[in-house]
């Protein structure tokens, strides 16, 4: 098995999904002729044709809604919303239809829809193209939120998402697209958090694009790193388990600090592991500013390895 990139893993996953199940099709802006904004779907149009790799007009609300309808109609659509920034235009369909439909109908209609989107900052794309809102989506009952941070997950989570009878939102991290790693091609679950590095002094809880930063920080502080992987429903067991050992934690999250996913992790720790704590849990999040263009300002706005190290060390002060 040789190393491939996160981007290649995503493409492989799409290719396999289209290959395996006739009901699967991919639709979104520029997934076809353009080859995908991030070149993730490059070559798939040629292989599967324009019915199954379907370019859409700029109509996020419309084609996400159409994806829901197609799922209800027996297909297994993978809808790509280019980035989370534009998904705000489709939010009504995601929240008010996809997420609610099964419950509202008394369990009659499941929506086996997969929505993929890129998320995160770090490439100087400025305020309107740098949101990290996956934590926001994690507030909504009825949908599952996954955040592949490794090449293995980038390859495996799509298949698992397609097997889920309910809507799954897959957040992909352009910041990780060049990362290389092994992708076994085996099944991965979309239910559990995972320890990515063992350590004994402090638990670093993170997900997505911040994972490499947390891993680096862990080297310096003997950290145990937990990759949440699935943001809804949250699997806190490894976090609580780790806290029994470390008694201290830092939550690292690229969302804005107030009301980000980190807050939920802290609330759960409060509820489930309060008596394990030797110090209050700290968080390293994005500063509460729209992400600025200038490189040094963007860096200052986002979580960084040094900030994580400092926060971890602060727990011992």
């Amino acid at each position, binding site marked *: 098995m040789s190393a491939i990139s996160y981007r290649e893993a995503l493409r492989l996953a799409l290719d396999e999904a289209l290959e395996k199940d006739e009901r699967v099709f991919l639709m979104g802006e520029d997934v076809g002729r353009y080859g995908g904004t991030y070149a993730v779907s490059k070559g798939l149009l040629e292989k599967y044709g324009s019915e199954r790799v379907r370019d859409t007009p700029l109509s996020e609300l419309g084609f996400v809604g159409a994806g829901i309808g197609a799922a209800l109609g027996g297909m297994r659509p993978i809808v790509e919303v280019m980035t989370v920034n534009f998904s705000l235009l489709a939010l009504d369909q995601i929240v008010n239809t996809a997420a609610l439909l099964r419950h*509202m109908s008394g369990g009659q209609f499941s929506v086996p829809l997969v929505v993929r989107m890129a998320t995160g900052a770090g490439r100087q794309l400025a305020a309107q193209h740098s949101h990290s809102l996956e934590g926001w989506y994690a507030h909504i009952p009825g949908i599952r939120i996954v955040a592949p941070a490794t090449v293995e997950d980038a390859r495996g989570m799509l298949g698992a998402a397609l097997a889920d009878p309910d809507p799954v939102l897959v957040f992909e991290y352009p910041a990780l697209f060049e990362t290389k790693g092994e992708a076994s091609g085996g099944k991965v679950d979309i239910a559990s958090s995972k320890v990515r590095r063992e350590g004994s002094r402090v638990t670093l809880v993170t997900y997505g694009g911040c994972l490499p930063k947390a891993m680096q920080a862990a080297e310096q502080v003997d950290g145990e790193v937990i990759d949440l992987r699935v943001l809804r429903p949250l699997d806190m067991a490894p976090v609580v388990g780790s806290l029994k050992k470390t008694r201290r934690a830092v939550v690292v999250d690229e969302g804005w600090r107030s009301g980000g996913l980190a807050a939920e992790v802290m609330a759960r720790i409060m509820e489930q592991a309060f008596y394990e704590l030797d110090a209050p849990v700290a968080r390293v999040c994005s500063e509460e500013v729209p992400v600025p263009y200038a490189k040094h300002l963007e860096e200052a706005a986002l979580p960084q390895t040094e900030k994580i190290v400092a926060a971890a060390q602060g727990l011992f002060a």
Partner: protein
Amino acid sequence: MKVPPPPSGKVELPVALSLALLADMLRIRRMEEKCAELYGEGKIRGFLHLYIGEEAVAAGAMRALAPEDNIVATYREHGHALLRGVSMDRIMAEMYGKREGCSGGRGGSMHLFDAAARFYGGNAIVGGGLPLAAGLALAAKLKKESRITACFFGEGAVAEGAFHESMNLAQLWRLPVAYFCENNLYAMGTALERSESQTDLCAKAASYGMATLKADGMDVAAVHKTAQRAREHVATKGPVFVEFQTYRFRAHSMFDPELYRDKGEVEAWKERGPLHTFSARLKAQGDLTEGRFLELDRAAQAEVDKAVAFAEAGTREPAEDLAKDVTTPS
């Protein structure tokens, strides 16, 4: 706005069909009159949007559709659900919030659903059903199924971005979907001419290159024929937009003080009422007797009584099962 003359002239339909359409309208009318009463008694709660006055649209359209077709509707969908074959018992139980309801009591008036009838709701977001219908049609097309999708919505939805995006997708991809616009001239208190710069809705739809049809929505025979043509067009050629010109006789919902229109207008439209004008025409041409009418009416009333009894006898889902059906059990 000038109110057109009441529908008139010979009804060119087989007698059995005419009587069936009349019975359909009566069933909706009697059911909803009862709902209003039950609302007054506090048995039904939440929002309740009555279709009274507009029955000809659901009646005429529904009988033009095939059993395999998909239906998407709005929060004003009691009539559509009923005529699509959701039993009045289950509709009434739903409004009571009982587990025997067609959505297990979770949906209420605005969210009637029925998988067996391919009735996809019951959507309380104005315009929310339009993209969904496009997607259902896309699935049918990809699966090479012969079903079409019929999407009912009010003229208020035409101003929403969802309308625009859906019309374009439907026509661009030649999806087998019929957009049935129930133009009752008001979106809550907002008259069409205060919400659309172009009030000819067919002209709007035509700007997407879509085929359009228009019919008097107070004339069940006209609705039926037009819906048949629409279905034929969709099944063979592509999407279609149909404007049914209608009017609601009641308030928007049970909370509406109706400040925005005057009684005279409502009375004038009542002259065009789908039930009495259609009955009168059938009688005039000898297709209906008063006795037969009363029989149909009594049958409808009996169905209502039975539905209420069913709903009253329904059971409450235990609160412990609250979280059921948020996601699909594995």
